[in-house]
């Protein structure tokens, strides 16, 4: 799979779509759809939350409905991004420089944390 990702410039749109579906499998929810970071790259409209020194920055983010947020891990230690309810969104483990994106499709407050280091917390506020 990593080989396909590395050569994605040559991957046909249809193939890329199929791959995205596989990678996102099980991550879909009523609130939004998790999409692998690279697949979302062309859009790249939403804000980024940087994980540095075991901290989400910014810790609180306010966005409009429909915005895609990207989290990037800048630490030498893996982290995750998990909604406090454990179901709305949940990244796989993010090693150094890996990222996770999630599109918020409903207004509300979404507190989240790192399931490895639960003292790391953040919040996304989604407004209409």
């Amino acid at each position: 799979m990593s080989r396909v990702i590395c050569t994605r410039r040559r991957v046909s749109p249809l193939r890329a779509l199929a791959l995205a579906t596989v990678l996102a499998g099980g991550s879909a929810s009523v609130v939004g759809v998790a999409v692998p970071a690279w697949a979302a790259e062309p859009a790249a409209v939403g804000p980024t939350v940087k994980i540095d020194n075991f901290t989400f920055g910014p810790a609180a983010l306010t966005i409009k409905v429909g915005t895609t947020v990207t989290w990037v891990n800048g630490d030498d230690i893996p982290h995750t991004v998990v909604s406090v309810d454990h179901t709305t969104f949940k990244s796989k483990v993010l090693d150094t420089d890996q990222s996770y994106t999630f599109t918020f499709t409903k207004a509300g407050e979404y507190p989240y944390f790192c399931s490895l280091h639960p003292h790391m917390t953040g919040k996304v506020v989604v407004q209409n």
Partner: protein
Amino acid sequence: MKDDERDAGSEEGLDRRGLLKCMTWGGTGLIWSLSAGLPSAMLVDQALGATAVKPFTFMQVSDSHIGFMKPANPDARVTLREAIAKINALPQKPDFIIHTGDISQLSKPEEFDDADQIIREAGLPVFYVPGEHDMLDDENGKLYLSRYGKNTKGTGWFSFDHAGVHFVGLVNVANLKGGGMGSFGPDQLVWLKQDLAGRPASTPIVIFAHIPLWTISQEWGWGTDDAGEALTYLARFGSVTVLNGHIHQIMQKVEGRITFHTANSTAFPQPAPGTAPSPGPVKVPEDKLRTLLGVTRVDFVRGDKPLAILDTPLSA
């Protein structure tokens, strides 16, 4: 056999029951005393001047983080192998190893494979508890349990007896809650209470778990939220030794009859609380790394000497 006699974590094919049989000493009473603030046990018949009982030793290995290949240590396999070589060089063979978690960096099968292959070089039974890095598979630790959790309960907790000492391996890295620290959870606490209930207060207890049971740094999550409850079950015992990892540095605290001790990592050092912006890996000069990594040896000496915990750096 009671349910506390299991082969949890051991992949060596050694018969632990046989080992126990060899090591078992008669269930005679112990006299407890405190020496230099540390508990020590004395057999009643020894106190009366009878023959000494053979002491035993076990090793603690922690935070091997196999798969870690970052500036703080380009290959954690190399330093784990050196740690195992330290154990193999001991004049007296330890009875077994406990591994206090973070075997792997990212819970990948190949990381566990490499760790197992290196640790097997010690030729000793190994008892594992998971660290948070060992629960990162898609099914929240199922892979860890399939490899190391044979005959354990819940997310991987278990107990066993060895030479009159009761060992309890606990899991405080599963199902963690946002904003909190390490946690055992109610199911495990119920089990622990039952596991300890019938035991005489004279039984020496060794508790081992990944995250420290006393709060070293709330800000960095270095503690276990519901450890206080667990410690109430332990309060009546004459000697309790709590062995942890997670913080990649040696810290010790004695509180009443409970000795808390954290071990060095075999992979990379972490900063002392408050000395760095985060608890992330510390990059030290190449020639200093091995002074900050190591293994821990625990000696149970029955007699008037204190229970001894000795940390040995890889550089020694």
